[in-house]
């Protein structure tokens, strides 16, 4: 066994234990520990990715050397490694972008607590990506929920407290259903390891027995994860949670936390149940309908919103709808499009949140739409970054959002069931127009010159790139990442397809 093969396990343990370590450090030191941990784990994940690509096949890491039906396992393929590297990069950039806001908005004595939460969040995300055991996945889902709740409520005002409470309530409902689904599946198959469950489920399905319990289990797990990742009717907590928490929290929550759950759902579909059985079960049709409704309703709510951060949050609901619509298509092309959209949305939404904070900072910390007039001139880099993010969200070529929309459209045309083809294409078209309405409206507002008198009266300041090097660096990296995803999407799509083949 090569030494590299230990890295997935080591990265989970490293981030898990660096959490408690941060509790005894001062805020400054905890910040450095956190950054170092994310960088090291990113490096280790990249090494794992290189290893898996080199050997060309997945490997299973048995924890404590207990063989299959008894022991706990970690399974690593191309897709898992890609996701781990990508999550580390995004998390590092989110943490860099929000340094100033964190120091201003969080009490001094609580600075180090923030890094505990981030480290625990990273470890739970990695565990969700790598684990091959359903019950372990459930436990880390809960750790993810608790640390995400901490990230929301660490900036203490009424809004974040209520948002955190609502988030917890919805999340607990979701994890209750997920746990019930896992118990049903354990009851039916007698296993907790994903590969063993898969064999048994195939047998049960071939026999034609236990048809309804299997359907119920798939339905419960899908709905549970859909609630936790804020699919349309379950999104009530989301705008406040993203809109009023501190900047790093908002960008991490929108780009990573919900995506971790969705990745778990992909694993459940492919590695636990088997995608053919999921497709036959009609559960994905429900996801398809709610995904499409979410695409439209999320954008409509965003258009009505005048607070820029809440507007970006509502846009997240629409994007989650895209991802579930891709699942609902029931083809591998649809899943590839969804996973690409997970990547592209994570890169774009974090960019938008960081850029929006740069814009509001030069508008007297007001998030109101009309105060942002001409902010693109006052903070040039943030203005450009916001424009790039908006163009990507709308789906203009060159940027990453275009590729994911193209993939969704191709998947929609390729689907056999014509009843799904037309709604997909129509919903994509309508949603693109709606996206364009609210994002372009904001971009135009940013570049509408403000009257001199108003500027002097409100004492808006100018900010140069060099004043906040960390944020500028993060923004530039995000822009480059976005262009990279948009311009050279072929290798990434191939990686995703390669990884999905390993899944099945």
């Amino acid at each position, binding site marked *: 066994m090569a030494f590299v093969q230990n890295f997935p396990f080591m990265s989970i343990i490293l981030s898990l234990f660096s959490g408690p370590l941060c509790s005894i450090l001062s805020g400054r030191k905890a910040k450095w520990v956190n950054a170092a941990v994310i960088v090291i784990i990113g490096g280790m994940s990249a090494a794992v990715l290189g290893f898996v690509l080199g050997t060309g096949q997945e490997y299973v890491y048995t924890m404590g050397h207990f063989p299959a039906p008894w022991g706990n396992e970690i399974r690593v393929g191309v897709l898992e490694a890609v996701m781990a590297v990508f999550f580390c990069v995004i998390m590092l950039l989110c943490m860099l972008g929000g340094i100033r806001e964190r120091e201003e908005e969080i009490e001094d004595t609580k600075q180090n607590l923030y890094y505990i939460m981030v480290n625990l969040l990273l470890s739970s995300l990695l565990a969700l990506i790598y684990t091959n055991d359903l019950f372990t996945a459930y436990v880390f889902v*809960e750790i993810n929920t608790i640390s995400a709740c901490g990230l929301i409520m660490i900036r203490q005002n009424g809004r974040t407290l209520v948002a955190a409470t609502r988030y917890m309530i919805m999340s607990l409902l979701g994890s209750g259903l997920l746990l019930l689904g896992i118990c049903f599946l354990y009851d039916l198959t007698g296993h907790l390891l994903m590969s063993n469950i898969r064999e048994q489920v195939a047998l049960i399905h071939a026999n034609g027995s236990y048809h309804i319990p299997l359907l119920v289990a798939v339905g419960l797990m899908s709905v549970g994860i859909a609630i936790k990742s804020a699919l349309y009717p379950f999104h009530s907590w989301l705008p406040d949670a993203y809109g009023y928490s501190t900047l790093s929290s908002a960008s991490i929550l929108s780009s990573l936390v919900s995506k971790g759950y969705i990745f778990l759902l992909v694993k459940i579909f492919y590695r636990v149940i088997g995608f053919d059985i999921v497709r036959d079960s009609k559960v994905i049709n429900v996801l398809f309908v709610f995904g499409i409704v979410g695409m439209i309703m999320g954008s409509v709510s965003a258009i009505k919103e005048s607070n820029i951060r809440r507007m970006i949050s509502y846009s997240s609901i629409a994007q989650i709808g895209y991802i579930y619509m891709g699942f609902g298509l029931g083809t591998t092309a649809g899943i590839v499009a969804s996973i690409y959209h997970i990547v592209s949305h994570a890169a774009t939404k974090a960019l938008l949140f960081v850029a929006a904070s740069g814009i509001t900072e030069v508008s007297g910390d007001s998030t109101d739409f009309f105060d942002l007039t001409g902010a693109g001139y006052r903070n040039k880099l943030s203005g450009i970054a916001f424009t790039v993010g908006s163009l990507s969200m709308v789906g203009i070529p060159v940027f990453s959002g275009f590729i994911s929309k193209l993939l969704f459209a191709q998947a929609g045309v390729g689907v056999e069931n014509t009843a799904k083809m037309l709604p997909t294409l129509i919903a994509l078209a309508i949603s693109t127009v709606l996206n364009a309405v609210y994002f372009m409206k904001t971009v135009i507002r940013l570049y509408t010159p403000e009257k001199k008198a108003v500027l002097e009266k409100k004492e808006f300041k100018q900010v140069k790139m060099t004043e906040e090097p960390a944020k500028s660096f993060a923004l530039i990296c995000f822009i480059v990442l976005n262009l990279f995803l948009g311009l050279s999407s072929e290798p990434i799509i191939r990686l995703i397809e390669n990884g999905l083949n390993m899944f099945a």
Partner: protein
Amino acid sequence: MNLGNLFNNYGEAVAMILFGIGFSNLLLQKNLIKKIIGLNIMDTAMYLFLALKGFIGGRKAPIVTDGVQSVEAYINPIPSGLVLTGIVVSVSVTALMLSLTIRLYRRYHTLDLDEISTRLRKEGL
């Protein structure tokens, strides 16, 4: 479909009814404490379900005391292990919810989530 199965597996049926009660309480109650009670009912119903699934009539808990090592003498221990893990998760989540409730109560002097939301809308942050 026959009702006989339902009566034979009355334990599981009770667990599901309890799960439903807990779930709807957590979702629909306005009072935060009642929500937390609903959460605990929901989790406990889960444990009842799991424990029933691991139980085999006439057998004992898998703790070797009188030298009997045959597998036939004991129940399946894995669901019991899952129940223990579940209890740990549920305790920590309950603690977090209660601490959030305390924070909200100190700030707004009420436990009604709807009323807190209305006041939030009026007062801003």
